[in-house]
Each structure stands twice: as C-alpha cells, then as structure tokens.
C-alpha cells in the first residue's frame, strides 16, 4: 500500500513534517480555522474507519454514522449522567460502538452486497429512531448540550491537540491492521469472497471482526466530535450523514488509505464555504457525487496513483 516511488524514510519525513505543521497550526491560525481543522480530522478519521469496511472489506457499509452517533452519545451520557472517572468515560465510549457493530454485524453479515447494506440501513435507522424519540434519556431531537468536557481539552486549541493525537494514533492503528495478514485477507475477500472461502477463510467471521473494528474507530471519532462541539444530537446518526461519509471515501479514493481523509478535507471545507452562500448544501453534494461517478471513479488519490505510478495496474477491461 505505501507507494513504492518514495522510500520509507522520505515518507516518514513527510509525515513528520505534516504533523509538525499541524501541531503548530493553533499558534498562528485563527480560532475558527483551528476548529475547522479539528473537524476535518474527526470527519477524516470517521471516513477512514468507514473505508476499512467499504474500500478494503468490500462491504456496503451504508449506515456507518450510527457508530459515530453511538460513540458521541455514549460519552455524553456517561459524562452527564454518571460520576464515572472522566478518563473512563472517554475510553469506554468507543467500545459501545464496537458492541453495537458486533450485534448489527452479526445480523447483517449473513447477507451479502446490497442486501447487507439495506439491512444495515434499516437497523441503523432503528437506532436513530430510538435516540430521536427517547426524550427522557437521550434528549430526543434536541440532543445533549453542554456536555462537561474537562477544561484541559475543552478550549479550541486543547480540543484540537486532543483530536490530533487521538486521530493520528487511530489512523496508525488502522494502517497497521490493514497491512497485517488480517487486512490482506480482508482485501482478498473484497475481491472475491467465494474464492477466499475455498482457500480456508471463514469469510463471515472475518467480516464480523471488520465490522467491530470499523465501528470502534467510528466511535472514537464520535467521542472526538463531542470533545470539540460539547454536544451530541440525532443528526450524527442520520443516514444522510452516512451518505456524506460514503461520498468522502469515493471522492478521496476508496482503495487508498489516505483517500477518505482527503475526501473529508474537501467536503468539510466545501460545506463550510458553500454554507456561507447557500443553504442548498445537499444539492452541491449531489452534483459532486455525479461528477465523481463520471470522471473519478477511483477517487482523487486513486486517479493520481494511476497517473504517476504502477503502469501495470490495468485491469481486464483495458485488454
């Protein structure tokens, strides 16, 4: 997966440079842009976790936002309604998402492709309805506001640094997982589940574990969102948001590791800019999606990769 064109050392240096620049951002960027950058990191982390199942696992992960929302609600509820140590609240919330992913995945992985996606969509919507209507517990459509975030990470720059560290660690972990034997077999399942089964792979178990991993990191992103925004609301698990994450993966390049992060950066920035001029953001999104399907089916990074290197990545259609 790491492009072979540059050596390992060069990539490491480049990565460190990006990190240092990001770490310095709060020092010279206006507060709003620091906040926006944190939001991009969170959204990018979320899209990357989606892509573990989507681009690398080939699963039609249509309602990934549910795990995002559950992570956000879990940490908010624990912080508001319990006296548990704060660190514990932050630490356990992603596991709530992972458990939900396990339960939903257990039901969904029996089906394949589109049917998997549709079932996930309906189960996810069920969770959304519960959250949306259960006023006494989740605050209903108002959501939960004024979540008590510890002062160290509640300021704009504090939450940014927290987000940066957690995102980088999470991305690192996902990268390791995708490059492990597990990740490689996952990609084989994406390409050909039937063949994978005949070489001794328990496809459903593999997919279920993938669901849990993807759900967990979506939960992490949800926790980060609460840290930055101080609130959780039902829209976090709406299916339109799921669609937006899907588009980010497609836009950035869903067969690449960093594609979703790039897609998130583009979409979040666009949404912020377009939002100033019009309220029809979804229309703009729809147009982006159409252009994407026609002109960049492999996303921005996928396109660049095909352009600069690996001339032998032609598929059957090219012959």
């Amino acid at each position, binding site marked *: 997966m790491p492009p072979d064109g540059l050596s390992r050392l060069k990539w490491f240096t480049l990565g460190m440079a990006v990190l240092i620049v990001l770490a310095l951002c709060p020092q010279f960027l206006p507060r709003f842009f620091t906040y926006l950058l944190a939001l991009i990191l969170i959204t990018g982390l979320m899209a990357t976790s989606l892509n573990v199942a989507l681009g690398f696992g080939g699963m039609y992960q249509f309602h990934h936002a549910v795990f995002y929302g559950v992570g956000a609600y879990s940490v908010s509820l624990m912080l508001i309604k319990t006296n548990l140590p704060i660190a514990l609240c932050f630490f356990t919330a992603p596991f709530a998402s992972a458990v939900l992913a396990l339960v939903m995945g257990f039901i969904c992985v029996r089906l394949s492709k589109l049917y998997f996606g549709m079932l996930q969509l309906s189960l996810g919507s069920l969770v959304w309805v519960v959250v949306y209507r259960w006023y006494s517990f989740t605050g209903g459509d108002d959501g939960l506001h004024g979540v008590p975030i510890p002062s160290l990470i509640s300021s704009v720059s504090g939450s940014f640094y927290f987000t940066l560290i957690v995102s980088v660690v999470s991305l690192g972990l996902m990268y*390791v*997982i995708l*490059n*492990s*034997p*597990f*990740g*490689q*077999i996952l*990609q*084989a399942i*994406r*390409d*050909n589940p*039937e*063949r*994978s*089964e*005949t*070489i*001794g*792979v*328990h*496809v459903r178990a*593999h997919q279920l*574990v993938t669901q849990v991993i993807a759900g967990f990191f979506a939960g992490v992103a949800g926790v980060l969102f609460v840290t930055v925004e101080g609130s959780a609301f039902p829209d976090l698990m709406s299916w339109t948001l799921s669609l937006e994450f899907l588009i980010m993966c497609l836009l950035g390049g869903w*067969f690449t590791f960093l594609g979703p992060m790039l897609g998130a950066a583009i979409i979040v920035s666009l949404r912020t800019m377009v939002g100033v001029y019009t309220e029809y953001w979804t229309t703009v999104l729809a147009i982006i999606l159409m252009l994407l399907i026609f002109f960049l089916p492999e996303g921005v990074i996928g396109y660049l990769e095909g352009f600069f290197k*690996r001339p*032998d*990545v*032609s*598929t*059957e259609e*090219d*012959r």
Partner: protein
Amino acid sequence: MLSVKDVQKSFDRFLAVKNANLEVERGEIVAVIGPNGAGKSTLFGLIAGRLAPDKGRIIFKGKDIGGLASYLICRRGLSMSFQIVNVFNRLTVFENVQVSVLSRLRRAFDLITPSKRVAVEETREILKSVGLSNVENRASGSLSHGERKVLEIAIALGANPELLILDEPTAGMAPDETASTIKLLEYLNSDLGLTILFCEHDIELVFSFANRVMVMRQGVSIVQGTPQEVKDNEQVREAYLGGS
C-alpha cells in the same frame, strides 16, 4: 482418499447430478470427462463444499464432508481451482498466493504483524514452482488468461492441499500454455506427491496423462477405470466417443 457415493444434486427440480460415484486413491491423477452439462462442475462444487448434496455421501480421508462449509473442507487438505478464472483482481500476483498461505497458517486474525514479513519465502517458492516469479509484483488483473489460470492453481497450492481439484485447468489456453500446464501438473503429482482430480474437455489430453478416468453423462457416472478400460467400454464408445 476420496470416495463419492451415490451423490445427487438438483437445482429447482433439474437434476444436475443424478447418481455420481467416484474413487480417488492417494497419489493418483484422476480425470472426469463428459460432454457439456454432464454435471462435472456441479460434482466438483459438491466435493469442494460450494454446494451441499441432496443425497449420497462424500468421504474424504475417512470422514463424510458432504455439505460442510468450503473453508472447513479446505482446512482438511482439499483445495480447488476454478474453471472460470477466479483470482483476487486488485491484489498483486504475490499477494494472491500469500493470502492463501496466510489463511493456511491460521494467521487470518493476526492484526499486528506486517504481512510483508509473513509467509514470504513460502509464497515465493510456490510462485517459482509454477513459473510466475517474474510477474509477482503485477496486479493479477493485468495477467494474460493463461497466466491467470496458472495463478489459480498457485492459489490452490497455497493451501498446501493433499488433494488438488482442478476444474478444466487448461480451458482457453494456447497449445504451448496447455503443454506447460500439463508439465506443471505432472510435476505437482510426481515431485510434490499431490493427488489430482480434474475434469477436461480435451479427451486426448486426458488419456495421455490421467491414471484413471471417470466418465459422466447426464448427471450419471457411467464408468471409472484406466484410460484403456474406458476406451474399450461399450457404453462409453456409444455415449461419448461416438463409436470411434
């Protein structure tokens, strides 16, 4: 080693396999021949666990494997290569085979070790034995048809099977590719000790190379024996060889 007894399989009332019997001894090369639609691929699907039989028994190494999930059958030492090319298109040739080796080594749930460091030697060896070393870094989707058929076999070998099942291994190959594939299969049988079960259209090829041949027709196995016995069989001559 493998014994198929009175196996039956139907799809929506269409009897694809009516009554199939087959014996494969360890170390043999056994071929299944028969006209199109005779039920050869269905039979292989049943043996490899892609389909469950309606009736009958499939005994592999003394245990009934009929209806067992294919990944479990693979873990017992039976590996299959497909008629329609069935590789992992987005992975490189090397990764295609490595995935199979990783699966056999039960590293499927190893989330931490970089896969670059696992099973590399073994994968290289397999690629070398089938003659794909020179293309190991190419995306498998970019290979020629013949190369992909060979890759098919290499993936099956990654599972380190005792019994290798090949569904038309030389279908669509150029004559020179066919010749080298046959050589490869002979090498796998004699040098690596693999038992091979395959089906094929090309009768000349089958008779020149299989130890025993089973003839299928309309879902029924007519006869199984040495190539000579099969050639001499009256029923076969009528049904399949057109009396020639």
